């Protein structure tokens, strides 16, 4: 049978041929992530922004701020129908979108990751940072892609200086133009620790491959490990609860991988 036909109609069998030799169809070995490329300050209109490519997956994150009583980070992830033929019907992406939005919000608001007191401006008011992530091309591993893009965008964020809005009875704050009476200084956002994600997918033969593409994701369950301040968080996707048995084996691989990711984010 022709290789292309086999790939299309029986991807499991197709993959089995490659995995037997310890290789994947795109030329990677089992524990090899795709090439990551980061671009900071991708947009001018947001407080902070970054675009990230992970192989053929690509996402754009932008941070916007508003003032509220409780300072926090809110993440929303969008996998629009334009990013892949898989999401041609909108409802197919909804589950993944809400999983990603909820999980990333939780991870980034962890006390060990982000100190919310730095968002306090003046009196009661505090910044609420909305991190919006749009996936521009989807080829698997949205978790790593979105989390890394969110971190890069937050690290790029500058909180603007604020002043009391003139002519209002109630205390209202507004972004201060130069040479006005500032009540809250401009400052850069700081993350205490970077959560660094590594995702594995289970292949039909029982092997685990790192940084799965869309086809590999569709073949089996995947598990995302996230290193936060020396501790691991584990997220199962697609019913991979028995992954716990393999964690011992995956963690050393993940650890070396997170070191590389840290280097990518450090690189100016």
């Amino acid at each position: 049978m022709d290789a292309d036909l086999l790939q299309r109609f029986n991807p499991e069998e197709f993959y089995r041929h490659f995995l037997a030799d310890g290789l994947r169809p795109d030329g990677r070995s089992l524990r090899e992530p795709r090439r990551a490329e980061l671009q900071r300050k991708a947009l001018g209109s947001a407080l902070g922004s970054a675009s990230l490519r992970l192989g053929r997956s690509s996402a754009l994150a932008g941070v916007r701020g508003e003032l509220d009583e409780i300072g926090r980070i809110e993440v929303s992830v969008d996998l629009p129908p334009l990013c892949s033929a898989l999401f041609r019907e909108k409802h197919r992406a909804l589950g993944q979108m809400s999983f990603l939005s909820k999980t990333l919000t939780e991870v980034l608001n962890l006390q060990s990751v982000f100190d919310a007191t730095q968002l306090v401006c003046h009196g009661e008011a505090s910044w609420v940072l909305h991190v919006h992530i749009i996936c521009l091309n989807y080829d698997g591993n949205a978790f790593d892609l979105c989390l890394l893009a969110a971190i890069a965008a937050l690290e790029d964020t500058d909180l603007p200086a604020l002043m009391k809005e003139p002519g209002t009875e109630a205390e209202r704050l507004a972004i201060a133009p130069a040479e006005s009476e500032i009540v809250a200084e401009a400052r850069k956002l700081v993350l205490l620790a970077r959560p660094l994600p590594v995702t594995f997918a289970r292949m039909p033969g029982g092997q685990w491959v790192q940084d799965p593409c869309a086809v590999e994701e569709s073949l089996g369950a995947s598990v995302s490990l996230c290193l936060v301040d020396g501790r691991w968080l584990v997220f199962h996707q697609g019913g991979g609860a028995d992954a716990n048995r393999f964690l011992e084996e995956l963690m050393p691989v993940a650890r070396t991988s997170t070191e590389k990711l840290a280097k990518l984010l450090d690189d100016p």
Partner: protein
Amino acid sequence: MAMEVITPEGFRFDGRRVNEPRGIQCCVGGCGREADGYAVFELGSTKAVAYVYGPMEAKQRSQSLHDRATLSCTLSTATFATVARNFGRKGDRQSQERSMWLQQTFESAILLEQYPRSQIRLFVQVLQAEGSPVAAAINAATLALADAGIPMRDLVVACTAGLLGRKPAMDLSREEEQAGGAAVLVASLTGSKRVSLLEVESKVPEGFFAPLYDMALQGCHAIAEQMRRPRNPDIQRSLCFLPPRTCLLEHASEGFSLRKSRRKA
């Protein structure tokens, strides 16, 4: 509020003259895209990215016509694109209406009768709206359609024009749009000089419509001329959100040789 919008020397707020569009950058196609056609278009700092899927078989019977293809257009604006607070509002009136404009524009430009019983899907995402977002969206869409190889009567190019004080000026920036003068949006088939879309959302004072319209049309031609020029690969690389061609080609060829050797075995 009376504001001096054009200096006595004839310069605008951002240093352009009235008959100058903003700088244009574009990137067509890309390696590893999911879509059949892909383009990024930048008009000053307004940025739009367009995706074309198709022509393909329509999923639902109701979406297919026996004598021509159907076209569906979706224009959406990223939440961080504008200053306005519009968190989590999807499919709002404005996007729906703008999607309709896109649809009308391209239905007259694409040779839909070439693909009976099929469907073409066009998605445009505005990533940064710093004035004339719809014009940038239309231009991005044209390039993406060209990248997908879908036959069109001509390149459709759009441009806005508006009154600054009492003078018509082309390609409004965000500040100029917000100043509230009359503005028109024109999309034109540049070769045949026919107009496929004309939108006027504000009141135009008597006697000013013709000069505004001419100015917008002139803008379309200026932009089209720049779009047809060969592009700088370095700029394309920094603009395009997809992986650069070289790295993936290596990757792909590696996979290909593996597959070949596999087949021999």
